[in-house]
């Protein structure tokens, strides 16, 4: 559908590379991610984990509330079967 293409673009959803620790008890902890500017950001703390949708970025998944320095931000693990991708919300 040619005419729908313009509306399907999504400027607020950014998929990111994430470094993860997989622990022996089966849980995971994100350690750092690479933002679209190519810079790697360390995750200092995970404050909260719960399933949640992102109206802003358009998607749903397991939402991690993380601290990067003094800033709080969301990271979403968009899992489907065995494949998982992480996305974050771009703030304009």
């Amino acid at each position: 559908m040619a005419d729908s293409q313009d509306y399907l673009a999504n400027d607020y959803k950014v998929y990111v590379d994430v470094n993860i620790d997989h622990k022996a008890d089966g849980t995971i902890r994100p350690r750092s991610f690479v933002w679209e500017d190519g810079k790697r950001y360390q995750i200092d703390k995970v404050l909260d984990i719960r399933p949640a949708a992102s109206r802003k970025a358009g998607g749903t998944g397991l939402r991690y509330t993380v601290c990067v320095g003094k800033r709080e931000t969301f990271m979403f693990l968009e899992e489907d079967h065995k494949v998982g991708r992480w996305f974050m919300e771009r703030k304009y």
Partner: protein
Amino acid sequence: MPGRVILHADLNNFYASVEMLHHPKLRGRPVAVGGSAELRHGIILAKNYEAKAYGIQVGHALWQAKQKCPNLIIVPPDYDKYLRFSRLFRKILMDYSDQVESFGLDESWVDVTGSKTLFGSGEAIANEIRERVKFELGVTVSVGVSFNKIFSKLGSDMKKPDATTIITEDNFRDIVWPLPAADLLGVGRSTQVKLLQYGVRTIGDIARLEPKKLQSWFGKWGLFLYTYANGQDISPVKLTNYELGVKSVGNSTTCPRDLENEQDAHIVFQNLAESVAERLRDLGLMAKTVQISLRTNDLAWCERQMALPHPSMISSELTNAAMLLLRKHFHWEKPLRGIGIRGTNLAPLEHFQQVTIFDDGAKRERAERLEYSIDNIRRRFGHYAVQRALLTIDENLGKLNAKADHIIHPLGYGRL
């Protein structure tokens, strides 16, 4: 069965809502999800409220819809996404009961009779489900709460979006009976027309009829309608793992064009067999028998079956069996309109099997591994990421995503 508490949860404008969540720019505009016109099913599958205001309805042809609303944005369906949301939706419901019965991708009944002491009244659970679906999935759901499945489904249809409707044994005569008869589950188009001829307009009219009269009009089905209208339906909400008792896995299709020769049939069988084989693997099952169904363009219909040399969930083996059956039983006096393939006589998947001396065990093992790899690629990159060359010979025939397209629609309620 006194005192049952049954919820019916219905995701509002499911396909369209999922698309609007994923594509923020669509919000606030008239949006419809539609099949592609080239494949003979160019119809509207779902619409949002903005599109509804223009009179767009599910089932309209795409060109019809565009005429009613030139600004309508038509988005192609993405079944992987809908299946994921459907699964997440069920997962939420399963937190409240072990009786969760799906009716299509976007509707489920939940019997919470036994969970009241844990989670509160039916209304409280319904509201909690609504809040969680909104927060966790980003779409809305309407919930009907009642003492039987028929009325809870009616309830979920009464207030939309994102609302709870309660129908009790005390108020159903006031709430349900004034509704048109067509709103009752089980009253389809032809039943509705017949009822109108007898002057029966509302659900209350049905409820007040003599059961014998309904029986003389509709046979046994008439008695069902009587109990439905009077709130006497006692059918249980099935246990969640009920579906595991699968008897057969099959797929059939009406082809985008009539099939003229063996190659045409081969393309479609291969396509359907891939979905059957993939679903068998998902269920951890193998088929010992393959069954095909054939429908010619004058709508004559027949079914043939054969036993496989060994149980299989490999698509090429299913296809070969189907082609063998076709050659043996069909002689192309007329073109084929539709065909189907089904694996029956199912056995649990085992990796150790009796081999015969004529078998090339290593070759079968390679074929199996190949199919699992294909499943994986498709799961990660979508159905069309990897295709058999055979399917590209005729683009229309090959371009059926059989697995996604054919497991969406629920069976008719009560009719078996």
